[in-house]
């Protein structure tokens, strides 16, 4: 039984360095007993977190329904669904930590690693994709690395449900868009300084209307741009490759 002692400190770096056999993920600790339902008296839970979890449990006919709100509350408190956070929820809700971790790993917004207390989700979904979303994400990620943005999770996210303002991003729930690469520095600086991100360009701002799309840059030509010797014409010209069949496209 392991509920009455602190879990041993875990060397994350060493664990990552160890190659586990296929099929095992690193959460499996074969050297320990499985964690059972913790003894409420043995786990210290911050009072506000306990109150929030208990209030959620009271809303539902079955206390298990409060697992998602509880994980959300613990994540806001601890920054991620850490083993300690799971133990605290487990103690209040009287479920096993394993049950909580099975749920936490299923949902995208629950962080099972310390990735940052705040988040910037850049939508690269199917409707944002034709509008250059990937480039926007890359610009934001590069800018964040350059400015040394810390404690913020920046990731591509599946459709965020704001395809009218594509490409868009959600900064801690504030939907901003339409974005292009040039918005990255302003967005990252605002996040870093804790200011409102892109004022006037969020659906949360009163009177916000999606502006008509600017003209999009023309795409690739209709005919596939393939040089007979391989690669595109541009690449072939750079390399000075002679056309194998004398120039199918009749260039001078």
């Amino acid at each position, binding site marked *: 039984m392991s509920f009455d002692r602190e879990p041993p400190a875990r060397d994350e770096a060493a664990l990552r360095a160890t190659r586990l056999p296929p099929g095992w993920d690193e959460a499996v600790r074969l050297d320990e007993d499985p964690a059972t339902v913790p003894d409420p008296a043995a786990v210290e839970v911050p009072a506000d977190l306990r109150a929030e979890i208990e209030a959620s449990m009271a809303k539902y006919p079955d206390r298990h329904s409060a697992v998602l709100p509880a994980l959300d509350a613990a994540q806001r408190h601890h920054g991620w669904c850490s083993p300690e956070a799971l133990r605290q929820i487990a103690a209040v809700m009287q479920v096993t930590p394993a049950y909580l971790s099975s749920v936490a790993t299923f949902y995208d917004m629950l962080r099972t690693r310390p990735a940052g207390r705040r988040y910037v989700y850049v939508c690269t979904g199917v409707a944002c994709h034709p*509008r250059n979303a990937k480039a926007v994400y890359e610009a934001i990620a590069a800018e964040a690395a350059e400015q040394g943005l810390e404690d913020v999770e920046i990731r591509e996210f599946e459709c965020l449900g704001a395809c009218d303002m594509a490409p868009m991003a959600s900064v801690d729930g504030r939907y901003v868009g339409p974005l292009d690469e040039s918005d990255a520095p302003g967005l990252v600086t605002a996040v870093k300084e804790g200011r409102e991100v892109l004022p006037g360009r969020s659906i949360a701002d009163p009177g916000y209307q999606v502006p008509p799309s600017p003209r999009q840059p023309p795409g690739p030509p209709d005919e596939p741009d393939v040089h007979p010797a391989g690669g*595109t014409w541009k690449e072939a010209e750079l390399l000075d490759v002679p056309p194998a069949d004398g120039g199918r496209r009749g260039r001078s």
Partner: protein
Amino acid sequence: MSETRILLANIDEPDLNTIAVYERLGGYRPLRKALLEMTPEEVLEQLEGSGLRGRGGAGFSMGKKASFIPKGTMDKYLCCNADESEPGAFKDRLLLQKNPHLLIEGCIIGSIAAGANKGFIFIRGEYSFQADILDAALVEAYERGYLGPRILGSEHSFDLVVHRGQGAYICGEETGLLDALEGKRGNPRLKPPFPANQGLYQGPTLINNVETLCNAPLIVDRGADWYRQFGQGNSTGTKIVSVSGNVQQPGNFEVELGIPVRGLIYDLAGGPPEGRDLKCFFPGGSSSPVLTKEHLDLPYTFEDMAKAGSMLGSGSIIVVDDSQPLVPLALRLAEFYRHESCGKCVPCREGTNWTVKMLERIDEGEGTPMDLDIMSEVQGNIIGNCLCVLGDSMAMPIGSMLVHFREEFEQHMEAARARRDLQEMQALGAGELAAVLEAGAV
């Protein structure tokens, strides 16, 4: 071509999300009528008579669904599906943000028809801003006595809870939603039993989309016959259509079902950007098979979209113009479903994964024409073989792209292969390169 606004009639009214403004515009009057002047059977009759079909994707008659809820004294539940995660759909976001009381009123009316005393609005976690608005609206509704025990002095009691998801597409599937609401991983369940018999906490449960429930107050207020005058055939009423992708003015447009698709894309959404032409469009969110230019003049109804081999789904049109290569789009689509597959059924879990791998291979110049045949076969083996339709949702659009644009896939494959060959040549020295070119080995 113009909009017919009945759901969105007051949407631009400032502060519509507060109960004072909502009531001033006639809000909660339908609820009084339903509670004090009508019996639950009459409410159900109106909903059934209106021909209102579910707006979440399946298009099943809402009144019929409510009538499947057994009578009796057991605990019954109402769930509102506000987990709008379908790529291309953003209509519920608008309703939740601007008109939360319409939804609350719709939920209460739905609960009268179903005989439910407890309801949940399952809203996706990403919509935290909208969920806060909804929470504030619920507090107001409780204060005015529209929610809680013995509403407005009637026999009916109803409690409503906003439940926030945490980011999983599959929770938009009704049984996945129920599992998530019960605090589990959002895995879909085997049907039957259908939720109407055994749903949340094993009790009979009515599950409806936000837009469907928002229609209920209008139908109760003005009657089923009034509602039936909108639309065409069995697709009655209006529909909020979300148009996105390569159009000049993306947005939500409320139209009568039955208007031509061309009107939606070109007149209301402004059509593709200047100098560009439409290549294909998803008529009902990313899960619907793509249609092409020749389908532009079809009426936008459940039946006509089905006849053309696609579906109206959640009513979200994603337009793709001719500057977009299809293979990366198909890859992005397949990646989405691979990511969101819950992993419970093998055809979906493996099928989405292998489709992604094959598309990556094609995109990197490693593909062969045989890959396209295998890919079509994989899609065929997913459809209809899983507990829910997530796998089908990838298989249908990808399958349809392979049917309509096979030539483009082949060309893309050749171009990618040629590019890869060139990269290999770049690695060679100048002498070797000349020798290879001379021999015509490329």
